[in-house]
């Protein structure tokens, strides 16, 4: 060390320490300044770039990359129709539906911590949740109202898609997936109805599943059901309830459908739904209006099975 410094006079330990401390003072000041400068532009830091993978400059390229290279955002295209970001066209109902699904998953998972799907426990768990669990009542209320809101949002979403003709070519199949998603939303809500195991849920589910008894061929009271060998102990209602009455098995089945099976199925359909929105060219509009005079006449042989290929 001493040789390296080329220092003749001070080789004492004390001197060396003193010199190092002075050096360090300088470096800390410099590095501190550097650190402070860095804080002014957090998006240039290594930490930021390790998380978001791209630089964040005010360039079109980086604006596009911040969407495309982000796993949560990449469902979006990098750019959207300038008129489509206005509320008046989409009403935001599809996005709100998806957001409510996330809210419901979140509150639902928290509710599952406090709930046992058994006849002995279920109702008491709700009482416990409402009266003793911190914010338990808020949690349950939020789950319930978000579910109601989701149904309204789904209906209004479908209403908007219909009125803008967005189900037309090439989005026909995505409309079908959407219809199935709506049915799944209703089923999700319906299966959740029984879980508090109170009179309201019990009789609603009784009324609902009694209708299954009347299924043609597969229900004991349905047309040709008895001829088909259906009894209260083997018909479609029995399969739904896991018994001939709404009881412990029905509670467990509702729980599993509600918390695992339907959310999984709905998630798969949602992935498909969003993916198709992109593949079909993003959201449908607001598109330029078409005129009647621009409808192309079919020429020659018309395709059979369903529709002519339509315009454009």
């Amino acid at each position, binding site marked *: 060390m001493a040789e390296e410094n080329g220092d003749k006079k001070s080789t004492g330990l004390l001197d060396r320490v003193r010199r190092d401390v002075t050096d360090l003072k300088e470096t800390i000041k410099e590095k501190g300044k550097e650190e402070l400068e860095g804080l002014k532009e957090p998006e240039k830091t290594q930490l930021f770039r390790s998380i978001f993978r791209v630089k964040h400059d005010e360039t079109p390229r980086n604006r596009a990359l911040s969407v495309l290279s982000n796993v949560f955002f990449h469902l979006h295209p990098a750019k*959207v129709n300038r008129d489509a970001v206005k509320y008046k066209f989409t009403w935001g109902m599809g996005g709100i539906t998806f957001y409510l699904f996330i809210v419901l998953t979140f509150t639902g998972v928290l509710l599952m911590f406090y709930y046992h799907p058994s006849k002995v426990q279920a109702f008491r768990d709700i009482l416990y949740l409402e009266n003793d669990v911190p914010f338990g009542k808020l949690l349950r209320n939020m789950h319930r109202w978000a579910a109601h809101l989701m149904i309204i949002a789904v209906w209004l979403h479908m209403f908007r898609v219909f009125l803008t003709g967005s189900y037309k070519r090439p989005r026909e199949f995505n409309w079908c997936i959407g219809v199935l998603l709506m049915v799944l939303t209703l089923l999700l809500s319906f299966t959740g109805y029984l879980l508090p195991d109170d*009179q309201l849920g019990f009789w609603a589910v009784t009324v609902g599943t009694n209708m299954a008894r009347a299924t043609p061929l597969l*229900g004991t009271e349905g047309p040709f059901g008895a001829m088909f060998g259906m009894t209260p102990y083997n018909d479609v209602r029995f399969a739904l309830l896991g018994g001939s009455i709404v009881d412990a098995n029905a509670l467990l089945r509702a729980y599993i459908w509600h918390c695992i099976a339907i959310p999984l199925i709905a998630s798969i359909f949602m992935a498909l739904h969003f993916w198709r929105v992109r593949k079909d060219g993003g959201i449908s*509009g607001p598109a330029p209006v078409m005129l009647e005079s621009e409808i192309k006449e079919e020429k020659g042989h018309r395709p059979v099975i369903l529709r002519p290929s339509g315009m454009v």
Partner: protein
Amino acid sequence: MNWHQIWEVASAPDNVPIVALLFLVPFYVWYAFRQALENDRLIDKLSADPQAAKTEYRKTEPWNPKWEREVHTWPYLLRIELVAAILVTALLMVWSITLSAPLEEPSNPNVTMNPAKAPWYFLGLQEMLVYFDPWIAGVIMPTLIIVGLMVVPYIDANPLGNGYYTYKQRKFAIWTFLFGFIGLWVLMIVIGTFIRGPGWMWFWPGQTWDAQRVEFAVNRNVDQIFGINGSWLVHFMPASNASYAPILARIIFGIFPILFYFVAAGYGVHRLLLTTEFSRKIFKRMTLLQMATMELFLILMLSLPVKILLRLLLRIKYVWVTPWFSI
């Protein structure tokens, strides 16, 4: 007048969504139609002036040729999504703090709730139970609604109105959907919530829900009106089977009103598809399968209001009675 009764129903926490629907649906219908009529005016203008049609932006949105046609998702869309998420969360918070989810007594199979109502979004189906047997109202109709909605894109042969609000170019489609969604779905839910009381009886707003009220069912079947008893059939049947004559006669008789309905409604729907010159043009584009599917679903959809009218005006319970099912 008992206004407390209607308040009690309207203020039940679980009925809040229906009260909300009463405002939201008219609002969004108005909101959509305002844009549709705006677009229709633009369509009229462009149709009258083909030269403008070539150069125009063809939207009612403001437009400057210097503007980009697309904007970056980040931040122009993502910030909207963030705001929407925050607003929805805030709404849910306020709603959850002010109103509590209902919790009744523990479930008890021995104590029937009166009225025992399905969740609000299924009340349309429950209301249908008044007019149809459960196998139709609870199984066939829901299936038809789902399948009917799914075939919509495949039977709509009208290429116009893809991606913008318009009324003029899609009158038939829009009226059909409004009729189905508002007339047959939302309205039935509203009736099921506000009008149907104990015993699923009809209580006008302002009437007290009286659990003791008794209604005398005086409904009859169509064959009873015509006095079908099979007396003429007996002559054609072996004596040992004579007791089956009334049943058989009713089965045979019932086919005719059903057939008549299908033919009459089918023709009516067909006429409706050919009302205007434009609709005739679209009709020409439809394939046989599209035509048949559309008319079938319209006939089946119309059967609900027809049955409601038959019940309310003529007090008819069943049109076709068989030992296995009745319609």
